[in-house]
Every structure is written in structure tokens, then in C-alpha cells.
């Protein structure tokens, strides 16, 4: 799958770097822990900037080519930062047959971005996700950790407004 790579400059803090170093130190003797380290690194930074991938490669003594290969292979790893509110619309089958595409289209229309992008002010990012398993509530979307179920396109504006004010 094609990944959107960030054009934003890298802005890591010393605290984040210390956390990452400790994480690498703990796992560097076991190369099978690479994915675990990358998952945790994404939690620390919110995404996996190229600079972080370099630190992981050097720290774990794994070729950068392999780290980059893994980061682009799995959907979970994001190479560009997410918005303050990340909207992920489930496009699993159960949601799709109940009209999830029209929900995604409506949000894209309202925010003026397409799936995989972030609004210029950095408030919203939008993505289409795989099945999250809440099929009983289809169609479903997540905004950060909050789940919205049984959606219709006309609810979208109201839900987005709540976050715009916040």
C-alpha cells in the first residue's frame, strides 16, 4: 500500500528521545522485537518520522533498509503526523454494506481533505480503517478513542462541530 510521507519538519523533544533510547536498550538483544519497538516508538512520537527510524536502526543494529521496509509494510505504522483529532472510519464489510463509504465521503467533503490526510491547521486527520469489530453498531467511526456507531451522513456536521469548538 502506498504511504503518505510527511513533509513536516521533525520536532522531537529530549524527553521523547530519552524514552526511545530506554526502549531500544531494553530490546536491542532480540531482533524479533523490532515491531514491538516500532509500535512503542509510534506511541511516543505519534508517528514514525524518518529520524526515529534511523535511531531505531542504529540502536538495534538492524539495517535501516529493513526498518523502513517494515514501517512501509504494515498499515499501522504512520509516516506522517496525525491531527489533534484523528477520525478513522471503519470500512469493514459490515460497515460498508450499511453505507460507511457515504460517511467517509461526507467527512471528506466537510473537512476538505481526503483519507490519509491532515487538515492544514493540524486539528483533524482522516483515515479509512479496517474492521474494528464493532459490527453490531455499523457503520462506525472512531475519533481518537471515542466510538460513534449507527451513523448517518447527516450526523457528521454535528459531531465535527463538537470537536471544532473544543
Amino acid at each position, binding site marked *: 500500500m502506498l504511504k503518505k510521507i510527511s513533509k513536516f519538519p521533525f520536532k522531537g523533544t529530549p524527553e521523547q528521545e530519552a524514552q526511545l533510547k530506554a526502549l531500544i536498550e531494553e530490546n536491542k538483544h532480540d*531482533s524479533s522485537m523490532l515491531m514491538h519497538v516500532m*509500535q512503542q516508538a509510534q506511541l511516543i512520537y505519534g508517528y514514525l518520522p524518518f529520524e526515529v527510524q534511523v535511531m531505531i536502526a542504529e540502536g538495534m543494529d538492524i539495517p535501516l533498509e529493513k526498518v523502513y521496509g*517494515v514501517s512501509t509494510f504494515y498499515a*499501522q505504522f504512520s509516516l506522517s503526523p496525525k491531527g489533534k483529532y484523528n477520525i478513522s472510519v471503519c470500512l469493514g*464489510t*459490515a460497515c460498508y454494506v450499511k453505507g460507511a463509504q457515504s460517511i467517509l465521503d461526507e467527512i471528506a467533503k466537510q473537512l476538505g481533505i481526503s483519507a490519509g490526510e491532515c487538515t492544514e491547521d493540524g486539528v483533524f486527520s482522516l483515515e479509512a480503517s*479496517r474492521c474494528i469489530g464493532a*459490527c453490531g*453498531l455499523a457503520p462506525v467511526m472512531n475519533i481518537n478513542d471515542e466510538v460513534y456507531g449507527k451513523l448517518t451522513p447527516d450526523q457528521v456536521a454535528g459531531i465535527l462541530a463538537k470537536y471544532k469548538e473544543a
Partner: protein
Amino acid sequence: MYRSHVLVCGGTGCTSSHSHEIIEKLESEIAARGLQDEIKVIKTGCFGLCALGPIMIVYPEGCFYSEVTVEDVPEIVEEHLLKGRMVTRLLYDETVQADEIKSLEQTKFYAKQKRVTLRNCGVIDPENIDEYIAHDGYQALEKCLNRMTPDEVINVVKDSGLRGRGGGGFPTGLKWSFAAKNSADQKYVVCNADEGDPGAFMDRSILEGDPHCIIEAMAICGYAIGASEGYVYVRAEYPIAVKRLQIAIDQAKEYGLLGENIFDSGFNFDLHIRLGAGAFVCGEETALMTSIEGNRGEPRPRPPFPAVKGLFGKPTNNNNVETYANIPQIILKGAEWFASMGTEKSTGTKVFALGGKIRNTGLVEVPMGTTLREVIEDIGGGIPNGKKFKAAQTGGPSGGCIPADLMDTAIDFDNLTAIGCMMGSGGLIVMDEDNCMVDIAKFFLEFTVDESCGKCSPCRIGTKRMMEMLEKITEGKATLEDLDKLEELALYVKQNSLCGLGQTAPNPVLATLKFFRHEYEAHVVDKKCPAGVCKALLNYKIKEDMCKGCTLCARKCPVGAISGTVKNPHKIDTAKCIKCGACMESCKFKAIIKE
């Protein structure tokens, strides 16, 4: 002793509709009335009837409250738990008959079910090992370690006829015997919990509702094949399942049920969790193991099979969650008991995740051989909004569809294969007359194009070319010749791909071509989408007799495709129209239709 137990569903579906807040509120309301020593609140796994969530059951009465909100909680505590009067307005209407409460087992949703792998889901607290032990937990492991030889264990599993529930349907006992036969200094047991089929969530529900049964089953497998280490590979999208499995592993270690010298038998077994990172192909066993090793999850050719050379190059046995969930029961109750359920060649039960256009969405477990009609009409409660059943999709992106005239097919591995379908992991998505089958085939192909790992060209390039042909069809640009080409290419991809993903990716296309060729032809020949889904083939029209000439639609149209004067019927210029639907939404007189 408590006089009442309140069970609240803590599965992903109900948690998404805030069941955790209901639990907090319940506890505080109960404490406020000083009832905390009389009433116990338990957070359980999934009850199965996700459509009615959040769900709460109060025992001993067995009251089934559905769609409970936080605001309802004080009333339930005050009226029911304190004064003993049920809150009838919240009871699931199927359980109330002539003012009498029927037990859950008597409702249509549960009556035809047989819960074997889901037996503890919604019954026990998954975060408390004592509750699992009280429900015969870890007895099967004790029986194996102290009273059976590894060969005897494998023979029981063989005799039960259990087949892999992850999709392939390979006999589990036979698989175990392969791994047992190979000697090595280290072997591994792997559990595939990378449930990638969109719309299937039984593995997640088992891990969330009964994690100890997977631990017990994996330890039994370890004993049978001679492995001392195991890995569970779970989707990262399942945070609740991961958390509960980790709690369960920690508790099992504390009780000495994992670790060294289990039950004083000299047998050691340790278990690790590895998280997936969102790659469908990792459901394929060789790709899954490559991923556990920390690599891109690309599959590799078989042979060598994992039983010879698997995880870290060592003999490995890999089964999926639902398969393992059957094992402790088979050991305790015997192979004959298990083989007595289901059909001759597909024994036992199967869990289906009912979704889509069906009233009772949720998880159901039925004996193999139950007909699709029973599952959809009796258990699922039929299609909502008076619509007509069109097809059921099984097996997700690797499966096919079952049309209405085959609804009396008894569902088992071989019957589904015979009609060009596939059991798959058990996703069962119901579609009604509003769903376009070409669009559904395109939806699944889009998924496999995206998820193809790219290692082999039939899958990487073939699925992409198929996708382009489907796009042509849904845009009304295809010819009948394209349909034949599509079918030819589909068969080529199926025969020549490296792994299960590519070999099954064309199935949704082949199945819809087989059963719904007329719909494809309508797109190609008549340039029409009969279900009204494919946008490019739709035309918006204003019904002259209904239009009042209010001009609202003309003002809403973003491209100025609507013309007309005040109080006279308007017209849409189909050449300019971008089919956004804004006019139809805005019309107060329902004068705009799409056809």
C-alpha cells in the same frame, strides 16, 4: 454470598456504546444504597446479541435488559435491585411473554444455538482466573499432563474430527501429529489471532470473554507436540483482547498453570503475546511467523511446512483461536461427544459473525449443518425494513456469496466449497436488494489489492488488473468481452498465486459472476446499476408532476446543472451533473429521484 449478580457486557461492541460507564454508575448507585455486600457487578465478555447493546443481565431472575443507558441505571438499581420490581420497559421484548419472563435460552436468537467455544463468553468474568477454574477450567490440561500420553491427546483430537476454523478446514489432529513427529531441540505452538476478515469478530470475542481457554488449549497442544513455548499473534486493533489475554497469562503464571513443572508433571510451557500491525496477509501462517520474527510479513512457499520448519526455523504448530477454544472441551467430554455434533465430515459447531442487513447482528454459534435459512431467518431475525434477502457473503475477501435460492444449503466445509463458496473464518454478511453485487466484488478486490504483499506477480499485478476491469464495469465503460477476460484472469490468479491470499482473492468475483451474472450484464449492456449503487450509472431526474418550482435544488447544485423558473418544473442537465445528490437531499417535495 450475594443475593443478586448483575452481568454487564464488556465486549468491544458494548464497550463502544459506553458499557464501562454503566458499570461505574451501577457500582456507585449500589454503594449509595449500601447494597455492595448483597449485589455483585461483573464485567463479562460478549453475549452475542451486539445489536441490542449495551446489554445487562440480572440473576437470579435472568432479566435481559437491552440498550441500557447510563441514565437508566438509577432506576434499575432503585426499582429492581432494591425493591425487586423489574424495569419492564428496558427488557428485551423477546424475553417477555404474557408478563412472564422467558429464559434467554428460549428466545429465538439463542434457541437454535449451541455454545461450545463461546460457552463462557458472557458468563464469567474474563479477568478472574477463579471463575474460569470454577467452570471446569484447566481440568483438561491436568487430565492431559497426568493421565494421558501425548499420542493419546493427539488421537482424541483426531477422533473428534475437529477441522481448522481459520478458513482452510484442515484436520487439527493430523496437523498436530506432523509437528509431534519431527524432533528438534525447540518447537513452538502458535495461535493465530490476526483476525483480518473484515466483519468477523469471533476470535476477538473469545479472547475478550474467555482468554484462559486459549492458554489452556495451547499448553495442551504444547504437551502433545513437545513444545515448551508459545506465541499468540493478536491484531493491534483489538486492545481489549490484548489486555485481557495479558492479565490471563499473568494470572496463569501466578497459579503455576504456565511456567515450569505444571501440575508436578515435569512439563514446562511459557506463552508470549506479539501484536500485529495491520496486514491482512499475516493471517497466512507462513507470513504470520515471518512477522513474529520481526520482518515484513511476507509468505513463503510451502513445503517446507511449518511442522518441519516454522517459527525461527523450528517445527511449529499453528491454529486459530476458535480451533483452540474447542480443545479443552474435547479433552474433557471426549471425541465422541464432539463428533456427535454437526455433520459427518464437519463435526462440532461453528461461530458466525452476523452482520450487514440483518436484525440481530452479533455472534452466533450453531452446529455444523445448520441451514443458512435457519441462521438468517430464525436466529438473525430476518432482514429489517421489509427488504428482500439477496445474498449472504461468507469467508470475507477470500470467500463467495450464497444467493437466495441456495438458502437451504446446510452450512459445512464441503457444502460451501461445492457451491464455490468458502467457510472462511465465519464472517456472514447479509445483503438485501439495495446492495449491488458488482460493487461488493469491487469492494473486496479493493481490499486484496491493498493488502497484497507484492511478493508474487499473479497476486500483485493480477488483482490490480482485475480491479481496473471492475472499475470499467461499474462506470459503464465495459463490453461483454471484458466479462470473459475478467473471468479468465480470475482463474489465472487463483491457480498461480503463492499463498492463500492470492489463491482466494478472485473468489468474490467468481462467485458473483456465477450467481449474479445478470447484474454484471446490466452494468455492461444496459449501462444500469439495478440496485442504484454505482454512481456513474445513476441519473438524477426531477419528476415534473411533483416539482413545485421552489428553486431550492437549483441554488444547492454546486455545478449549476439545474435550470428552471420560479413555480415551474425544473430540469437536470445530465451532462453537467456530477451526481453528488445535493439536490435530492434538499428537495422538500421528494420530486427528485435517481435511477
